[in-house]
């Protein structure tokens, strides 16, 4: 029943906030609903760990180690982001960038977005999974254009069209999958249930499945932000409100990748060949390389980190493509640390841009002097995301790279060079922002509310801990999930 | 090795070096005067100069630090040590184990560093100029000198000077072409190291050309005396080292005083010859521009390397 609590609380929150989202205490309500969601998710996680996988509601929902881990992560980051967005959105409103009506839209859509993501994760039906993924796009489109600036409208339009077209391919893939499944399982709703499909994946028709996977890959891959399907991503991240960038980068990409991985498991079962894995590795590698080279030309700080997200998604995709217990483990770990770190970075970036009144990198300087906690947060977060030990991103990158050295040695130098290029690019951008004197020609803005530091440092602390120590239960959990992925 | 007679012999040798060194300087001056058709000063002039300087009151610049004042003593100490290490009369010297050929070069470097630092201490234009030039000559000469020493030590498989000289002296007369090259290189290095023409002119106080003298400009009285004496000792040591490496015949091996006497005679003869040779070189050549010195010492270095290669190619079985 925790499942319904997990899904119900953001849905209810969405409805409530659609009604009262512009009132004084709406932000608190947003936080409260997110906290309830997280508690429910924690309860669900505890149940699954204690009792093993569960399938409920006429097999429409299935929870195993793989998705419960993502449910917990999603609910957690959604909660911390809600906490962050409370002062952030108030400052935005105080700076006159938002009206009450838009604030209501924001709050309602935030909850509904959480709902759709959790639905993607929890549903056992691949059709519903598609529906929910599309819904996740729809809920965030209006958030991206929240400021109604020309740039934000453009970004939202591109986001809508590219993801819409992309996701349509995924629907075609799902239809083909259903077509193949129907021949084995018979017509009807059961034929799209993942648990049923994975049980019979060996007898699915390989030709159909491989074509289906192409469509699924292009479809969900667009949402993951794999190069060359990534073009919506930097625009959408840069132009939306920062909490939205945080959840887009930290959560939505993960969720889309989750969908892709679920499909990959079926394809692997059917084809008994590394076809799907090779495709994933190829796209992953391409994403890492191209994103790394994009980084050095960025002038907008949020765009910079959007490309960094593409790079990391590429890395995770590569890891899942490679497969095997270590790489899958590493991929899951990287998902965790990436979403924690990246959202933390966006928290810091958000307040930094509010303080400077701009997102242009060259115009933000001397954060250490202006606001040391934000400055340190941004610097440490950037170092963490670039894979500097002792942060957790290094742990997962170490595992991915070392496993690649064993199984795909040719790819390792490419990955390492790209990571080094990315390192140079990001540090060369972030360092001048953090250090030095604040610019004198652009006046700093006053922040009428205290910036949210706690979510930022909580995330960084967890990431730091994961670099030095992965608690055995968590490791066991990852291992189970990795076994599911294969 | 460290027998009583050995220690006595060591002291004797050191004392001899300290006392005879100014004589060698005087002898070179005399020879040079002769060759230049001048009337020569008495050969004992250097002693008189030293005595005069010792009795005089030294004048120190106002901002001379104590480094400036201790340098003459350190320099003198270093040169005495160097003189003691180089086998002049006997090869069984107790102090020899304290420093081999490389360490000897090190001791010279120590002296040079102190002298240069002292020259910079007062803060005059000439002092720093001298220091810089001296250090330049140093870094150019040292590699050549070490390669010369390495050639000798490759022949004798040791870097201990006593052992090198002992082996050379004991050997039958075999012609070592490498040693010829090394000898020329050594001579060139010695000229540079001892501030002789063509690299430096010990007799000049012409501002733009001096090296060694520029460093001594601020010294006077007993300090200057010690510096001058140390310079004589250095010349003496270099000469003895050259003799020991290239024409060691006659040097005594063992504790017999008779042998030492023979060696003393041989040494006196060889030094006299060497001194006049030096005077001849100085007369025949002209002082060159300071930035020709790298070429000069570079030639020395190439010769030394050739010597080593010839040894490795022709003389190793």
């Amino acid at each position, binding site marked *: 029943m925790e499942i319904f609590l997990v899904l119900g609380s953001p849905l209810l929150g969405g409805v409530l906030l659609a009604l009262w989202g512009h009132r004084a205490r709406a932000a608190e309500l947003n936080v409260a609903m997110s906290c309830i969601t997280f508690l429910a998710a924690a309860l669900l996680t505890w149940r699954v760990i204690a009792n093993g996988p569960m399938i409920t509601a006429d097999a429409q929902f299935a929870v195993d180690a793989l998705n419960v881990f993502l449910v917990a992560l999603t609910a957690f980051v959604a909660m911390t982001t809600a906490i962050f967005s409370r002062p952030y959105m108030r400052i935005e409103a105080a700076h006159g960038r938002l009206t009450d009506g838009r604030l209501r839209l924001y709050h309602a859509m935030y909850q509904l977005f959480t709902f759709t993501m959790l639905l993607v994760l929890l549903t056992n039906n691949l059709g519903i999974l598609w529906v929910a993924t599309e819904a996740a796009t729809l809920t965030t489109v209006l958030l991206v254009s929240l400021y109604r600036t020309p740039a934000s409208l453009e970004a939202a339009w591109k986001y809508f069209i590219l993801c819409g077209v992309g996701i349509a391919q995924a629907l075609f893939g799902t239809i083909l999958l259903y077509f193949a499944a129907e021949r084995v399982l018979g017509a009807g709703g059961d034929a799209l249930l993942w648990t049923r499909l994975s049980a019979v994946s060996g007898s699915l028709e390989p030709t159909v499945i491989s074509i289906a996977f192409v469509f699924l890959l292009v479809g969900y891959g667009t949402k993951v932000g794999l190069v060359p399907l990534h073009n919506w991503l930097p625009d959408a991240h840069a132009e939306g409100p920062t909490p939205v960038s945080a959840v887009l980068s930290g959560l939505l990409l993960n969720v889309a990748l989750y969908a892709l991985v679920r499909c990959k498991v079926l394809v692997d079962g059917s084809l008994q060949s590394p076809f799907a894995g090779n495709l994933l590795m190829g796209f992953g590698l391409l994403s890492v390389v191209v994103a790394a080279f994009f980084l*050095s030309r960025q002038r907008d700080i949020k765009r910079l980190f959007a490309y960094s997200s593409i790079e990391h998604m590429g890395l995770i995709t590569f890891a899942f493509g490679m497969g095997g217990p270590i790489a899958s483990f590493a991929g899951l770990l990287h998902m965790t640390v990436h979403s924690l770190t990246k959202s933390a970075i966006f928290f810091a970036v958000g307040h930094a841009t509010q303080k400077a009144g701009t997102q242009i990198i060259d115009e933000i300087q001397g954060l250490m002097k202006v606001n040391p906690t934000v400055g340190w947060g941004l610097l440490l977060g950037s170092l963490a995301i670039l894979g500097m030990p002792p942060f957790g991103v290094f742990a997962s990158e170490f595992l991915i790279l070392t496993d690649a050295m064993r199984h795909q040695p040719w790819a390792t130098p490419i990955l390492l060079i790209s990571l080094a290029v990315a390192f140079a690019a990001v540090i060369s951008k972030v360092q001048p922002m953090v250090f030095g004197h604040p610019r004198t020609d652009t006046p700093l803005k006053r922040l009428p509310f205290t910036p949210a530091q706690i979510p930022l440092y909580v995330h960084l602390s967890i990431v730091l801990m994961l670099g030095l120590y992965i608690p055995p239960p968590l490791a066991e959990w990852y291992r189970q999930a990795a076994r599911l992925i294969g | 090795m460290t027998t009583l007679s050995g220690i006595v012999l060591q002291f004797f040798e050191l004392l001899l070096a300290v006392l005879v060194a100014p004589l060698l300087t005087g002898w070179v001056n005399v020879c040079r005067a002769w060759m230049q058709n001048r009337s020569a000063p008495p050969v004992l002039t250097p002693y008189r100069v030293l005595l005069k300087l010792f009795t005089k009151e030294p004048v120190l610049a106002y901002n001379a630090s104590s480094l400036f004042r201790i340098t003459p003593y350190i320099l003198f100490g270093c040169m*005495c040590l160097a003189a003691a290490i180089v086998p002049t009369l006997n090869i069984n010297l107790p102090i020899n184990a304290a420093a081999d050929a490389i360490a000897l070069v090190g001791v010279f470097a120590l002296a040079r560093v102190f002298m240069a630092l002292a020259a910079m201490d007062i803060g005059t234009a000439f002092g720093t100029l001298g220091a810089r030039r001296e250090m330049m000559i140093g870094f150019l000469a040292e590699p050549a000198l070490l390669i010369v020493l390495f050639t000798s030590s490759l022949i004798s498989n040791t870097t201990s000077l006593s052992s090198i000289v002992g082996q050379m002296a004991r050997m039958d007369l075999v012609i070592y072409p490498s040693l010829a090259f090394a000898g020329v290189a050594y001579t060139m290095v010695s000229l540079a190291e001892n501030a002789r023409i063509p690299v430096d002119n010990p007799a000049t106080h012409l501002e733009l050309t001096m090296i060694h003298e520029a460093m001594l400009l601020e010294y006077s009285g007993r300090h200057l005396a010690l510096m001058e004496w140390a310079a004589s000792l250095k010349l003496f040591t270099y000469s003895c080292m050259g003799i020991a490496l290239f024409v060691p015949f006659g040097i005594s091996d063992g504790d017999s005083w008779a042998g030492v006497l023979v060696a003393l005679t041989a040494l006196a003869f060889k030094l006299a010859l060497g001194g006049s040779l030096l005077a001849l070189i100085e007369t025949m050549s002209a002082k060159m521009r300071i930035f020709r010195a790298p070429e000069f010492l570079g030639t020395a270095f190439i010769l030394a390397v050739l010597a080593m290669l010839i040894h490795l190619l022709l003389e190793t079985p």
Partner: protein
Amino acid sequence: MPNVTPLQNILVVVMLWLAVGLAGLAFPRNLRIVTKLLFPIGAAGALALAVSGYSAVTGAVDTLILPLGLPDLPFHLRLDALSGFFLMLLGAVGTGVSVYAAGYLRAGEASAPGVQCFFFQVFLASMALVTIANDAYAFMVFWETMALSSYFLVVSDHEQPDIRRAAFLYLLMAHVGAVAILLCFGVLQGGTGDYTFDSMRGVEHTPFWGTVAFALALAGFGGKAGIVPLHVWLPEAHPAAPSPASALLSAVMLKIAVYGFLRIMFDLLDTSVWWWGVVVLALGLITALYGVIFSAVQSDMKRLLAWSSIENIGFIFAGLGLAITFRAYGMGALAALALTAALYHSLNHGFFKSLLFLATGSVLHATSERSLGKLGGLIHRMPWVAWLALVGTLGIAGVPPLNGFVSEWMLLQAFLFTPGLPHPYLNMFIPVATAVAVLAAALAGYVMVKFYGVVFLGRPREEKLIEAHDAGAWEKIGLAWLAAGCVLLGLMPVAVVELIGNITRLLVGQSLGNPSNWLYLAPINAERSSYSPLLLLTVVALVALATWMLVRYFFHGRIRRGPAWDCGFPAQTSRMQDTAEGFGQPVRVVFEPFFRMQRELPLPSDQSPRYRVTVDDHFWYWIYLPLARATEFLSRMASKLQQGRISIYLLYSFLTLIALLFFVR
């Protein structure tokens, strides 16, 4: 304390350091607590570490597995003689530097003292941990933590653009190096998937993969150590840090890189090929020469020292190269000699370079000047610093009887054995290459005379130098500790060589020395060569003393003060002394091809003549700028992909789809 192993001791010290660092973060702006309480505690920890390191060098191998790190690869720790040696170095130097830092830190300078304290302690702790790491993950974590904490130390005075640039370059190079090291470990595990060092020791490598591992290790650790052409970050980053941090960077961190190289080449990699050693030797010699000639033309005192660090690293790598070659030919005793020389030089450099960097720190505080052109005459105002720095200067100049000479002497001895190599070219070329080593060593003397003479001797070049004050008590103690180290290392070589013997026995199976004779250092045998600094010093001191007494006795001790003579030149000013640039001029002329020089010469008719000369590093223009441009070009190409047109974006998706469909068919 019953049954506490040295390894546990070390962990306790590391914990102590981390605790001290965190305490510093707790009181970021409380200068009194940070300097008078935390740094002395850290120093005590460092001393304890040095003792533990010493006992590890002589003791047995000890291992430990911590329940941290990755689930399948927890932190493996291992303490052997090699680790112990570098821990000893870290502890001993760290003690001096920490004590000094207690007196050095000021409020309002660079970042807050507590924050500096934190990174300082983390830096120390991570360096200690690197030396005891026994698996690739632990090693990389500690290694990068070391880079990161030192980056924060370098950038602590971040308001200056130059420092930010230096720090960025440093971090970037460190990271690229780390990438190479990680790849190296990937090669070393040899397909087993086991990243513990114990497993790597057991893997056999083909010469090809061995060579790949060697090249990667050389690039990774050489880059960290500052081997040419990967040295460019070093002269930027080391001077940028506050002086205690510069001291640690130059004196200790470079040695940790040497440690890493040693660990891989002599412990983890089972094969060895003779020409590896030649490559290392050649690079080492080039580095030494390149470092020293650039050192000679610097006009910033800390940059001068940083370049000098490059030179010294070159010597160390030359020694390692010889050792690798000797080892490949099975000449154990000679490999031990070369290795001993390299290790000894590491130790020496640790002491004198930290001493000199700290001395520059005191000068900086007393005068707020780093430029050699504005210093001078400080021996009168700062006698303590000046005389202690003299010890370091003589040490680094490589003159007997101080420590720098001992290691150079042994290195040259090792060179003299190369004609015995069973290879027709090597046995001719390497002896000639010796000349390069000697040249670099002689140039080091030149550089150090310039450094010391311009900073401490002569007359003050600026008015304000008159007000310079000597260092405080803490600083003096720190400096004296390091100077004492230089003297002891110089005078007691036999004991040190005996200690290093434990390591060479571990790495090449043999050791040097005749322990029976404590006075003479005779690495191979006494007939061949021997050296006794103590005796040497005694003779010089006795003679000097006797001379002094005799002169006084026979003549007199009177002295008169007067103006400087200077050939009777009137109206001398302090500006007439050689400038730092002037002092470097001979080197600039002799080694002209090494420099990328730009001169601006005044014309006789110029009203306000300007003379300017800038000296640059060729490698910037040969390697780094082209690389940067290539990256820039590639990103420009990449950005052409994204021109904002939604139709084009759709076309990408479309083409991807079509291509994949073709691929499937």
